């Protein structure tokens, strides 16, 4: 059952990523071409998912939307991990120290707690108010807002690793702080970071959708899943399917990353593995 969830997750994630890649080379129709004659066609052989109020093929728009979702996810998770993980390792290794390293660790953690109070939405609103909404604003806002969980996870895992005797043994073997962080801490916390990255990816797709629904992300005319939902709302009475497809796309992509993350966690959790013995 656990394996099944992991496999479903992998399939959904692969589907999302491949769709995004495919959209770079090919979409069934031009995702921007307005064809008034074709507006609001239901699903059928020509347009599998139908067309929207401008007569644009929905499948094509969803494919391009996947591109934005994946792009924002990759950049946001990269920002969050590249900032959060090193700071987390720092805070984790210094937490047991004395004097100033301990102080640095404390300051980092307090800063992290403050950042927790800034969800991606608020950061994006702040940035959009000044710079205007764009894909970059969304990436930065979502990336920065995702730093705290990475930092927290990396710190907790580091704390766990640092009390192991093998870290003490490495010191006894003459390995310095940096060497220990790279050779012993990083490989041992990599699995939990991978899990967090997968879950954060799902969260970032949700955040991007919310931002673009509010018009705070990628500007017109590029189609995004969130904007498609926004555009579908006026047709809610007559053509409810317009709101169903993008929502399904978001749901399946996020579900995929979440299942993948959980599956990885189950696979890597030593307690679950050892409970058999």
């Amino acid at each position: 059952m656990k394996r099944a969830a992991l496999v479903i997750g992998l399939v959904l994630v692969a589907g999302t990523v491949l769709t995004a890649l495919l959209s770079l080379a090919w979409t069934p129709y031009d995702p921007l071409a307005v064809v008034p004659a074709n507006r609001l066609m239901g699903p059928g052989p020509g347009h599998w998912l139908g067309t929207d109020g401008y007569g644009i093929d929905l499948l094509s728009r969803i494919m391009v939307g996947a591109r934005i979702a994946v792009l924002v996810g990759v950049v946001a998770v990269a920002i969050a991990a590249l900032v959060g993980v090193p700071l987390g390792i720092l805070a984790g290794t210094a937490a047991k120290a004395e004097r100033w390293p301990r102080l640095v660790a404390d300051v980092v953690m307090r800063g992290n707690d403050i950042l927790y109070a800034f969800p991606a939405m608020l950061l994006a609103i702040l940035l959009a108010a000044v710079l205007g909404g764009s894909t970059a604003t969304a990436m930065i806002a979502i990336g920065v807002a995702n730093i705290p969980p990475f930092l927290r996870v990396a710190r907790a895992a580091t704390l766990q690793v640092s009390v192991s005797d093998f870290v003490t043994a490495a010191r006894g073997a003459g390995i310095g702080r940096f060497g220990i962080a790279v050779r012993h801490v990083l490989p041992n916390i990599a699995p939990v970071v991978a899990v967090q990255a997968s879950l954060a990816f799902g969260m970032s797709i949700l955040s991007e959708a919310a931002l673009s629904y509010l018009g705070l992300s990628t500007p017109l005319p590029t189609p995004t899943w969130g904007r498609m939902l926004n555009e579908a709302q006026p047709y809610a009475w007559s053509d409810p399917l317009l709101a169903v497809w993008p929502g399904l796309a978001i749901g399946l992509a996020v579900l995929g990353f979440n299942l993948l993350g959980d599956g990885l966690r189950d696979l890597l959790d030593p307690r679950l593995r050892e409970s058999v013995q």
Partner: protein
Amino acid sequence: MSEQPLYQVRDVVRRYGHAARPAVDHVSLDLAAGERLGIVGESGSGKSTLVRMMAALDRPTAGSIRFRDTEISGLPERRLGFLRASVQMVFQDPRSSLDPRMTVGASITEPLRSPLLRRRAGVPADTRARLEEVMAQVGLDPADARRFPHEFSGGQRQRIAIARALAPRPQVLVADEPVSALDVSVRAQVLNLLADLVASEGLTLVLVSHDLAVVRHLCDRVAVMSSGRVVETGTVEQVWSAPRDAYTRTLLAAVPRLPLP
């Protein structure tokens, strides 16, 4: 012990945070080269903290520890190379003392590859040759160097940890409860191995244990610790057969023994 001792520990105190009493409380002792010293006590007696300070893995709050006439307690990590090359440690639980994501070979040769020990006189330069040598010495197949710790039993993992400690040809081996995390059925084998190595390599040994019978087997001299203080020292035979301190007597009586055959 007419010569200058290898280790001189003077009035060492270690206090953690705001703890009501120090973990190590004004301990002084000498260790001569080639001597085999046992430190006996229960958990919380400060015995592990003391040897960790001797191995410069922890710092005293007060007092002095001199190794070969050099004060080590205030030295920064980068100037501890001479100590790290000469003093190596074996920990209690090999499940925790070996990095699960590092091959056995990489773990064993870690001291040889460290920036502090590499190219230091006396530390073997040929990493590969030394790896095979120490693995054979502790009774492991050198071909197993590419495997990971979880593929080995507890006793074998402790052998790996011992091989790592031997790798840089140390003069002093500090073993902190090296058999108490192992099954009774393999304890004697690891103790025999330690005894053989100490004899063949001419090592100076510091052995920490809660069981005087173990110490009696490997050491000549013993220090009994309780609540951070050394309550009794003497030759092993003297403490074993005629303990002077009341706590030592309690400790000896508390260890269950099989009825004589």
